[in-house]
């Protein structure tokens, strides 16, 4: 059964066009060839560039919120039911408006339909929240219902419109539920892991080799996000690292992070096994996102290793980690370059596909912030103590005028 408003052919054509543009940018095809590819892959939808999309999204959100606020202000309801009904009414209106724009104006990731669908989901959830508040439903139960509602509505939006971020919203909403069940910390984590593994399993079942390329890309991103979420759930010391970043060095670490020792050590083992397993999976199936998430997880594992073992962090830890990263990069690069045709089993360090450039990138921003960091890390110079060293004693005879 197909729920999506776009056909698979449309999505595949959009995917192919995107790849063709990357090939052109990287000098692999000519302008003429790109034009032929674009002629052959007309998706029949209206698209815009990323900046206009962002502007459309922001201003549609502003407009939708202002309209709801305006109606609520005009109606001046004295009860929650009136407010909730208005919100649900707008939720339905925004939803059908988004569908209309896609069906009749053929919008594809235009920003407007995305903002409308998000506004629809948000107003539905807030409206239902207000209704539950009016009916005096227990807070914990209300949060669970709201999370379920958010998860279902976000999942529906993913199915219908194909917005990848809405399935991520759906997963996040589901992940909040275990923390509302008054379970012990271990129970919460295990329940959360159960949910995440279940979703991962479902996505793996649907991830068949014959699925279209665009779908493969989406599935990979979802699986990478799930892998990251599983890792964050398993690593019991990840928040200690975050506290260290915010200079909360004075924190006393809870022994075994408040978990039973056997679970603690299992989690320690898993923090190593997940990145290794993820890396193996990513390399074998050649999924970039899985490889990147696994590498990031491996980096976090090494950073939290001292916390797990109850050791104190040293000031030079980041430098050692940095040297390790540099050494690894050089070794991998050299190993790949020395292979036949500068490849090893298809892997190469050559720059084949150039990323899109918008004038400034993250590396430039990182460099721009460096002088501020250097300034903040300067030790305070010891001030000369006037009464030390006999400078003032004896009439201060040793001090120069």
């Amino acid at each position, binding site marked *: 059964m197909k729920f999506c408003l776009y056909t698979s052919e449309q999505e595949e054509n959009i995917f192919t066009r995107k790849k063709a543009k990357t090939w052109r940018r990287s000098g692999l095809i000519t302008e003429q060839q790109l034009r032929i*590819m674009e002629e*052959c892959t007309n998706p029949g939808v209206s698209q815009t560039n990323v900046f206009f999309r962002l502007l459309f999204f922001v201003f549609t959100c502003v407009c939708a919120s202002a309209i709801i606020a305006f109606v609520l202000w005009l109606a001046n309801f004295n009860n929650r039911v009136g407010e909730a009904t208005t919100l649900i009414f707008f939720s339905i209106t925004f939803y059908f408006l988004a569908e209309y724009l896609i069906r009749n104006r053929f919008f594809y990731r235009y920003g407007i339909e995305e903002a409308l669908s998000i506004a629809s989901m948000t107003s539905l959830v807030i409206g239902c929240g207000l209704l539950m508040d009016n009916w005096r439903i227990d807070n914990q139960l209300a949060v669970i219902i709201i999370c379920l509602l958010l998860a279902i509505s976000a999942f529906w939006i993913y199915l219908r419109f194909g917005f990848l971020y809405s399935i991520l919203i759906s997963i996040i909403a589901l992940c909040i539920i275990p923390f509302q069940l008054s379970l012990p910390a271990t129970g919460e984590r295990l329940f959360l892991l159960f949910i995440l593994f279940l979703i991962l399993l479902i996505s793996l079942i649907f991830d068949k080799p014959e699925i279209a390329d665009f779908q493969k890309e989406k599935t990979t991103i979802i699986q990478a996000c799930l892998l990251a979420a599983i890792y964050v759930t398993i690593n019991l010391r990840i928040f200690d690292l975050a506290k260290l970043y915010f200079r909360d060095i004075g924190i006393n670490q809870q022994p075994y992070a408040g978990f039973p020792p056997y679970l603690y050590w299992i989690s320690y083992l898993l923090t190593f096994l997940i990145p290794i397993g993820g890396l193996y999976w990513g390399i074998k199936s050649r999924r970039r996102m899985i490889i990147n998430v696994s*590498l990031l997880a491996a980096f976090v594992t090494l950073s939290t290793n001292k916390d797990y073992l109850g050791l104190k962090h040293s000031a030079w830890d*980041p*430098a050692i980690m940095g040297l390790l990263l540099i050494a690894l990069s050089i070794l991998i690069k050299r190993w790949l370059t020395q292979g036949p045709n500068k490849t090893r089993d298809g892997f190469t360090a050559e720059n084949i596909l150039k990323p899109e450039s918008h004038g400034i990138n993250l590396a430039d921003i990182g460099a721009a912030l460096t002088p501020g960091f250097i300034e903040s890390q300067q030790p305070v110079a010891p001030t000369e103590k006037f009464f030390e060293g006999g400078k003032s004693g004896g009439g201060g005879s040793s001090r120069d005028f």
Partner: protein
Amino acid sequence: MNIPSLLQKMHEEKTLSAKQLNYLLDIHKKKLFSVHQELRFSFYAGILLVIAGLGLTIKQYFAQLGDIAIIGSLTAGSLASFIYCFAKGNSYSHKEVASPNIAFDYILFFGCTLYSMDIAYSETQFHVLGNLWNNYLLASFVLFLFLAYRYDNRVVLSLALSTLAAWFGFTVTESRFSFQEYHRLYAIAYSCLTLLIGIFLYRLAVKKHFFDIYLNFATHFLFVALLSGVIHYKLFSLYFLCFLAACVILVLYSLRTKRFLYMLYAIIYGYIGISIVGLDIIRRNTFLVLTYFIVTSLAVIVLIFSLSRKFKENA
């Protein structure tokens, strides 16, 4: 149409060579898989971590390590990086020059950062220039600018421009955000100077691809300065006029060059600035405030929509 069938079709129609077909199919089927970006990222992250670790170690253990050890190692590290870059760097060209290897750009950046740390540490400890210590920043800016152009390094150019900003008195470590009158004027002066350098070098056709970095720095400094002026002086001020003029110029530039990042900046900053003035006039009238947001956001949507259509038609 999926990629293999499209490539096959083009090959059969003789619009794609056999070599291209095989190469693109290899890339598509991931028989050829580049990890170039990942290696670059991990190298850069590694360099940033080393810099962070060095900074933290010096801050915490400077008394135990001693000045000679700190200054000596920082100088040696920075010199080694510069010597490596002088030895390995490609010859200069006004046009874009590719880096000789994946690590080259970041080694140069590392050298520049060690140099900055060295100078900052020496000055903090010995106060050689006293109240004139700021001139170190200006000298560093000149050095970094030279290195950025000599080795075609965008990262070092960003470092140079932020060092110049530091010379003007701007840092990102301020715990409290305040923008006094002199900050505003300095920020405007900084952005004008940055823009002038960028335009001058662009006109000379020297590393034209660097212009975006100049423009990004200049845009943000200028708009933040003007916005703070608009917040302070509202409608009847030169700030508001300059702010509107800057928005219009940026929009026109964006339309002319079809670089829509600048359109994004102009519209976001412009909307914030005009809303500050508009809401100040409306004051606390809820009806007008809500109507303002509905009408203006719709107006912006219609404007961008017509622009996006126009560019599609032109394309």
